[in-house]
């Protein structure tokens, strides 16, 4: 027999006659019930560990994928752009305003003011002038057309990758010297130390003729560079093509970093007179770099969305099974007075806990992988060699954790999970407790 309490215990046996009015005034529920629902949700996850884990892993997988893929791309991109810039164009170029559209000998400008202004921004490490034009290049009887670039080797030699890609000889240092590409050398039958004759049209007409000695032959693997360019000292170019001591077609600058070069360029643009110069950043100089980057971004994102959709179905599935299994239990809860809204909210809490765990897991995995690779780098497959040479990519990739990708991935997965849980969850609203209780759960 059990112990029976004193009838004087504080338990009202019957209420007064409240009438229907009492129930029209709803009592607000305190924070306590929400905490309890959250606690129920957390504990519910453990009821079926395997299912919880599979769902969490699905979410983690998609987050990991986007973050990791973007981190790799992110790390590569800057490197790729920088490598490309150091091959020839630099990060930033200042030009005569019409030079970009029509690169003619006449379109020169005074280099010093532009150089000074660039230096004044503090964002650039190397700044120098170039004067360039087309000419016939010949050794003995064979001649070929090429772009002659007069530059300042003391400055450019410090950053130019091309200067370090010599298959023979050395980079140019002083007047009277030239470096040419291997394909060009081959085409005109030139070899190291031979004399090269340059023949072109000077500014304002007249003949520009120059003899220089080939001190180096470079091999970049890029056809355009190897076939069509000869680099000489700008102090040779200027007198030969009738340019004055400060005249230039370009001022080339390398920023202290890729981002700094953008900053510095903006400063330059804001302080110059409207239309005084043509100003080109790396995006203008190498449009294909950014476009390839955009294409890759888009395709990665699309990929992610499809995967997110697939995982989304799996979440809907999970909650469908879940709701089905707990039908009787939920029926009873509604019978004792819990409103359906609270049940749906509880399911939403469960969804939230799943997605948060999944996101955390995916982010951690991606982070760990990125950190590990940050040290050792990720080697690329051998077949990629040709591609790498062409697109200035290093042979090891160093990923850079992409926080933006993490925000996007988490946001989408979390919102998606909430929505996915709502699809079967909203059925609770239409549940009749009586039927639910009788159902085989």
């Amino acid at each position: 027999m059990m112990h029976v309490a004193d009838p004087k215990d504080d338990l009202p046996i019957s209420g007064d006659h409240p009438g229907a009015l009492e129930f029209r005034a709803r009592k607000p529920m305190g924070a306590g019930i929400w905490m309890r629902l959250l606690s129920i949700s957390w504990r519910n996850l453990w009821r079926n560990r395997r299912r919880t884990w599979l769902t969490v892993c699905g979410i983690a997988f998609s987050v990991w994928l986007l973050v990791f893929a973007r981190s790799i791309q992110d790390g590569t991109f800057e490197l790729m752009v920088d490598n490309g810039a150091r091959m020839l164009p630099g990060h930033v170029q200042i030009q005569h305003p019409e030079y970009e559209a029509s690169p003619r000998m006449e379109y020169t400008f005074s280099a010093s003011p532009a150089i000074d202004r660039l230096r004044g921004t503090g964002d650039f490490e190397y700044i120098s002038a170039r004067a360039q034009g087309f000419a016939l290049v010949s050794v003995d009887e064979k001649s070929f057309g090429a772009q002659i670039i007069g530059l300042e080797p003391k400055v450019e030699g410090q950053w130019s990758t091309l200067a370090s890609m010599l298959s023979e000889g050395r980079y140019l240092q002083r007047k009277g010297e030239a470096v040419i590409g291997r394909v060009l050398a081959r085409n005109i039958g030139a070899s190291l130390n031979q004399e090269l004759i340059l023949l072109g049209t000077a500014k304002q007409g007249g003949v520009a003729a120059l003899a220089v000695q080939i001190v180096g032959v470079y091999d970049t693997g890029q056809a355009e560079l190897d076939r069509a360019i000869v680099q000489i000292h700008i102090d040779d170019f200027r007198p030969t093509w009738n340019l004055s001591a400060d005249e230039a077609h370009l001022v080339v600058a390398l920023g202290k970093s890729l981002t700094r070069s953008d900053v510095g360029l903006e400063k330059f643009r804001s302080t110059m007179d409207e239309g005084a110069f043509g100003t080109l950043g790396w995006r203008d100089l190498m449009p294909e770099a950014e476009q390839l980057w955009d294409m890759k971004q888009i395709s990665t994102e699309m990929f992610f969305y499809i995967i997110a959709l697939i995982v989304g179905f799996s979440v809907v599935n999970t909650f469908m099974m879940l709701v089905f299994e707990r039908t009787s239990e939920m029926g009873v809860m509604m019978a004792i007075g819990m409103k359906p809204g609270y049940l749906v909210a509880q399911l939403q809490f469960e969804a939230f806990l799943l997605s948060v765990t999944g996101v955390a897991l995916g982010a951690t995995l991606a982070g760990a992988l990125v950190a590990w690779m940050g040290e050792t780098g990720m080697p690329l497959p051998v077949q990629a060699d040709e591609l790498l040479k062409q697109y200035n990519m290093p042979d090891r990739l160093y990923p850079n954790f992409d926080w933006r990708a993490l925000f996007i991935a988490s946001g989408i997965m979390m919102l998606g999970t909430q929505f996915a849980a709502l699809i079967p969850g909203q059925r609770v609203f239409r549940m009749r407790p009586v039927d639910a209780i009788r159902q085989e759960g």
Partner: protein
Amino acid sequence: MLKLLVQLSLRNLTRHKRRNLMLFAAIAVAVGGVTAMNTLIRGFQADMLDSAVSNLTGHIKIYAPGYRDDPNIQRGFELAENFQPDVAAEDLLGWAPRIRVPAVIMSERETRGIQLVGVDPAAEVISFLSTVEITGENLTDSNDGRVLIGRELARQLETKVGRRLVIITQGADGLNREKGFRIAGTFDSEGTSLEKIFVFTGLTRLQSMLDSHSVTEVSIRLRSEPKTISVKEVLIDFFVGLEVRDWQELEPQAAAMYIFADGAIFIWFALMMSALTFGLINTLIAAVMERVKEFGMLRAIGMRKSVIIAQVVIESTIIMTIGVAVGLVMGYLVFLFFADGIDLSAFAEGVEGFGMRTKLVPVMLVSDLVLVATLSLALGVLASVYPAWRAVKITPLEALRR
């Protein structure tokens, strides 16, 4: 017996229409997504191949040794009058002899370095020249002494159709030749480097300008790429003393992208299917677990373990088959939707750098469809292993007791 199991599976599937619908949807999206992506990647691949092959490379090229290092007319070779490559007609699309030498071209205003190409316009049905858009006129025949230049080059030289240009190049004796040419027409190859580099003129006229009877290359275009290797063997035997090279050797970059595409397809598939696996296993296990009583009862009446396993595997396979079928159809519809091509002109410069055209036309390969379907079904079978194992672990006793 098998029929019975299949019937049981089908009945089970229809019992939980909603739940299985989600799984079908997931499989369909995964398979459809992979199929659609495959068509885009194959389109890219085809583009790579096409640009490599049609921009004068062809599938196979024949040179004299030393030409590639020193491309001038002195490194040419003579073709017999009634020369024909010894290749079966059904494999061969065509062949074209050419002279290709570096040269300098000058207009009144500008000078440029180019590749001067002497062609037989009739034979050039195998290259891009036959399909490219031409303003003005194309060259009429091998004797046409005019030139066909790229639109971009014309713009750089600040000249146009009907005007004259001067071309300087090296003749057979090693001395320079200079000659004037009138522009017959300009070609538009969507801004690719072809427009900036190539200048075409009649082969025979060029030969006389250079004082030579040689050609520097013969380009062969086949009907289908896979034949390349075997045809190349034949040509190596035929053209004794000459270099015979296929497009992969001549255009390593395009070849690399081509191979890369195969890798990309595989990676896509692996990732999509991985995403699918989580939901798949969940559903399969749930399907098993809710039939604990049933399985226990079947074991109690004497059904062997292997039959239980078969049941689970069959169910998984049926689910996969339906999902894959729907997915393939979905992928096909997406393919049809984009069949005209996706406009990539926003990425024009980048795309050109790859040698691609600005319109990506998807390509559907039956072999891809078969591969996706087979691998997906295999995945379905694999994913059912764990649930099947769980099903079998249920002893009749504990099942009936529940």
